[in-house]
Structures are given as C-alpha cells and as structure tokens.
C-alpha cells in the first residue's frame, strides 16, 4: 500500500513545548517537510532565536546554533561565510527580528546574504508573556498596552516584508499565513522557493508567516485564527513582495589594480603623528 503521509525525517520525536493551538508547531512541520523534500537535512544548519522558538533545535535533527536575542541573521552570516555550500536558515519571532534585531535583519538583507529567514509574525512577544511587539496592531491590548496600542505614544506596526522589499539586496520576500489548508500549502511552496533560492546561490530570501498566539491573545485557537483573518490580514496583506534575480557583481581581486589599493590607503587620516614616548 502506498504511504501517503509521514512525519518529516528531519523532525525528532521530542514533544514540543508550545502551547496547545500555537502555530509555531505547524510552521516547524512545514519547514521540516521542505528540508526533507529538498534533501538538504545533512547540509542544513539552523539558527534558533530568543523567543518561544528558542528550543527549536530539540525538534530538528540538523545542526543548530542558538543565537542571542535578535542576532540570528549575524550568526547565520558567520556560519554561511564559513560554509557557503551549506544551507543556513534562521527562525525568528517579530520581537527578535523586527525590534531588537532590526539592524541585523536589514543589513543581512541588503548584503544579499545567501541565507533564508523564516519570520514568525504573531503580533506579540509570546515568550515573555504577551507584551507589545513592533507588529502589534493599533488598538490591540497587550500586557504593555493595557489600553490598546495607540499611535501618539506607541507608533505604528512595522511591515517587514514591505520594508525589506524596498532594498536592492533581497531576492525573494513573501508573506504567508497558516490559518487554512490553502495558506499552509502556499507557505510550504514559498518556503520551498526560498530555500531553493539559497541552494542556487541566488541570495537573501525571507518568508514572513502570520501566526497566532492564543495564550497571549487570550483566545481559544480557532477564535485566534478568526481574529487573525479579520484584523491581522488587513494590516499585513499576504502576498509576494519581491522576486528578483540579483546581480552580484564579483570583482576579481586576485589581479586587482595595486595602484587603486595604494590610493585608498592614503585617503585615511594620518595617524603617524601619534608617537610613542620611549
């Protein structure tokens, strides 16, 4: 009899620590399926964030590094530069990626770093118990916006897919969701494109996945999905934000013009006047 369904090989048997109904687990499975389908388990190095997904290395068989809060794109850059032929991905929440790690995110993107980022936007700081995230919607009540987020003191939600797609560096940016079979299929397909982009050495790819946090939104899982569809989708429209072949012009430095190098050396400040005392 033909086997029509099985657990992805790269997933371990360890039960996850996520709350019941949390979409982190759903997304883990999709990432795992794509890794399986592309046959890259042995070549993949994951970077886990600080956030609810901090322990995701327990659920995957591939190598992992656990990064400081927000620094996953920088850590991934270090790994990728050492192993350009391996597949390096980060998995980061919205606090991790869009608040404390904004600089690392934007600069990995603008460098066109050949990595893949799986970005989980659940409009909240899940792990620390439900504080405002940079993605929290206007009016949304959180522990640190007890009267609802309001613009005069807390500003507006940040659209990462929109923002990064204005940059030249990224090759593929897509926003997805996992609230329905249709959207789950689309997320899987998008992650496949994103990882393939990296395999083909075509540069930076990021898939933003709208996610729910039933625990900190204070709703049962299905109601959270409904709330997401009615509110979050309006602020963060799903879709393809960037899909472009990037021209990484590579200069052959082995035969570089030594005169040009000399000129750049002379352009700095003259620090030779600082002399030693003895």
């Amino acid at each position, binding site marked *: 009899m033909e086997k029509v369904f099985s657990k992805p090989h790269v997933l371990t048997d360890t039960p996850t620590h996520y709350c019941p109904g949390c979409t982190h687990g759903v997304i883990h499975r999709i990432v795992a399926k794509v890794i399986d389908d592309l046959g890259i388990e042995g070549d993949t190095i994951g970077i886990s964030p600080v956030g609810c997904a901090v322990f995701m290395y327990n659920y995957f068989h591939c190598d*992992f590094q656990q*990064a*400081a809060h927000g620094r996953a794109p920088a850590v991934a850059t270090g790994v990728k530069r050492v192993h350009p032929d391996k597949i390096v991905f980060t998995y980061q929440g919205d606090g991790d990626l869009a608040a404390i790690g904004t600089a690392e995110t934007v600069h990995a993107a603008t460098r066109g770093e050949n990595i893949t980022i799986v970005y989980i936007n659940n409009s909240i700081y899940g792990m620390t118990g439900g504080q405002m995230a940079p993605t929290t919607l206007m009016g949304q009540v959180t522990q640190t916006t007890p009267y609802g987020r309001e613009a005069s003191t807390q500003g507006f939600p940040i659209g990462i897919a929109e923002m990064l797609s204005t940059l030249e560096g990224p090759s593929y940016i897509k926003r997805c969701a996992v609230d329905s079979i249709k959207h789950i299929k689309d997320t899987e397909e998008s992650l496949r494109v994103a990882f393939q982009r990296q395999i083909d050495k075509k540069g930076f790819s990021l898939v933003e996945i709208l996610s729910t946090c039933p625990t900190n939104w204070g709703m049962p899982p299905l109601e959270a999905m409904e709330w997401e569809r009615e509110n979050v989708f309006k602020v963060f429209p799903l879709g393809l934000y960037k899909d472009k072949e990037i021209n990484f012009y590579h200069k052959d430095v082995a035969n570089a013009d030594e005169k040009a190098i000399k000129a750049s050396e002379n352009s700095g400040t003259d620090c030779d006047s600082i002399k030693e*005392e003895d």
Partner: protein
Amino acid sequence: MSDKVLMKGNEAAAEAAIRAGCRYFFGYPITPQTEVSAYMAKKMPKIDGVFLQAESEVAAINMVFGAAGAGARAMTSTSSPGFSLKQEGVSYIAGADLPCVILDVVRAGPGLGGIQAAQSDYFQVTKGGGHGDYRLIVLAPSTVQEMATFTALAFDLADKYRNPALVLSDGILGQMMEPIDFDDVEAGFDPSKIRDFSDKPWATTGTNCKRGQNLIKSINTNPVELEQENIERYAKYAEVEKNEKRCETIGVENADVLFVAYGTSARICKNTIELLKKERVTAKLFRPITLWPFPDDALKLAAKNVKAVVVVEMSHGQMIEDVRLNIQDKPIYFSGRSGGMIPLPADIAKVAIDAVSVIKNDGSNTYEGGRE
C-alpha cells in the same frame, strides 16, 4: 630564515592573524584600530578569506560567534566603545565555549571619550564585563612584535581551551611602527588545516546525515545542569590559571622599588628605571603579560624584598586592584594619567623617590595599609 619588516602594530596583529590561519574577520570601523580592518579588507580576498564590514560591533561579534561555531578561526577587532558593545556577544561566546580572538586597541573613556591611547579597559576585559560567570584569556603586548606574536598565541590558546581570547593593546601600540620578525608567529599553525575542521568535531558543519546533531548554545533552563556547566567551565579556568600565567621581570634583583605595569606603561617604566639610577634609587619592573590569568605568584615573588610598589597605568587605577589583592605587606603607590595623556618617566620617578624617602623617614619598612 628571518622575515624582518617594519609595520604598524595594528597591521602586525592583522598579518599575524592571517598567518595563524584566520580567514574570517568581521569588524566595524573605529579609531585607533581601523588599520586592522583596512589590512584585512586588502588581504583576505586575495587568499580566499572573508573580510566583512558589519553594521555594528554587536553584529560583528555575533558573526564571529557563527563562524567560530562553524569551526573556523575567526576574529574581530575594535576599540573601547566598540568593545562595550561586543560584551553581549562575548558572554554568549564564552557561554557556548567557542574559541575566537578579539583585539581591543584601547582609547580613552568613559563614553565617547577620545581617540588617544589609554588602559582604562582593564576592568571590562579582565572582570567579565558581560553578564554571567566567565573569563577571557587576556594578553597584553608591549611591542609591535608582541602585537603579532600574542595575536597568534591568542588563537592557539582560544582553540586549546575553547574560550575567547583577547589581545589588549592601545592606540600607541596600534599606531607605532617597529621592525618585526614573523618567524615565531608561523610556528604554531599548520596551514593545510585552514579549512579542515576535523579537530573541532563539535562544530556545526552539517550532519551529512552521518552523525547526530551538533548544537552550539549557551542556554540551559535547568538550574542543576546550568550550574554543572559553570562548574565545568571553572575547572577549565583553573587549568588556564595553572598553565598560562605569563609575565616578565626586568631589572636588578634587590631593588628598592617595584614598578608594576603592562603594555605601553611598562615601556615607560623601563625608561623610568634608567632615570632613577641617577637618583640612586634602584627599581625593577614586573610586567604582567597575561592580565587574566593574572600572574599573582610571580608578582608576590618579585615584590618580596622591595620597599615600595608603584603601579603605573594609563587610567585612574584599575590593575592596581589586582596588585593590592596580592601584596598586603608593602606600601602600594599609583602613578597614572588618563584621558589619552601619557605618564612621563619624570613624574613616575618622583612617585618612586617619594615612596622610598617616606620609608626612610619612617625608619621602618612595615606597611599598615591605606597609604597611596
């Protein structure tokens, strides 16, 4: 075969790193260490290495985390305000037991301070600085030659103990030129091993579906286990303390005054010793080379028969706390300048002469503490 060249300290450190097998350098511009980045930017692409100008020191040290975790000899360099920013990453690197090399070309602080040389990062490099229980191996060069030799040594020590190692330089050592010989620098490293990570079986190189997961992390939410990890790390530090204390003592055995100084200050003390000969005051110099582990026993020995100890630093007195911890029965004086000002031999000599004359007037050589 000797290989003598005239180089700036910063360039010597960069060249030594390359010769020690470092092919991954992540930096962010800051005076007075920028020559390191400039040198790496020029050399790395030609030898199939990576120079990356990061968006911040925070990013640079986290790139080092990634590269070191991936198995490579990785390095970053900075100056004081940049090292403050790197402290988060350094704590994570120490907590994940990763080897790497950091060069801090110290400038005057606090805050933005100034770009002139200082030694006011002693606290932040030897006493942790970042959060948690951890140590950095800290080497303090005092010549351009040592900028090179110690940078290479730092890679070896970092790998040996799987711990970050730091070279503590300053704006003067970074900028000045001296002839240097790279013969010692190459000795420790096998160039065929640059991209062979087999002696780091813990590195994240991809499982190749042939082994279990390699995991680089500092997190452990189980207090019993986390304490055990810390205990094991401290056992490692005890090994470092047993094996790696380095220092130099210069001058006559039975001197009246013992100078304690490292780096640039140590060079100034050597001149001061000459100056004091004219004043009929005999002095010697104890120069810690490893600031951590601090060469405590050797310091005690060097101080045994002197009448007074004079600590010289380009700060308001940071290493002096470690000197006080080790010497309780002698008067300890301080001579230092800060803000980028350089202590002058004449000023240091005066402190030494006063110290000796106070003791002569007292008619005693016993110290009750508190005088400085």
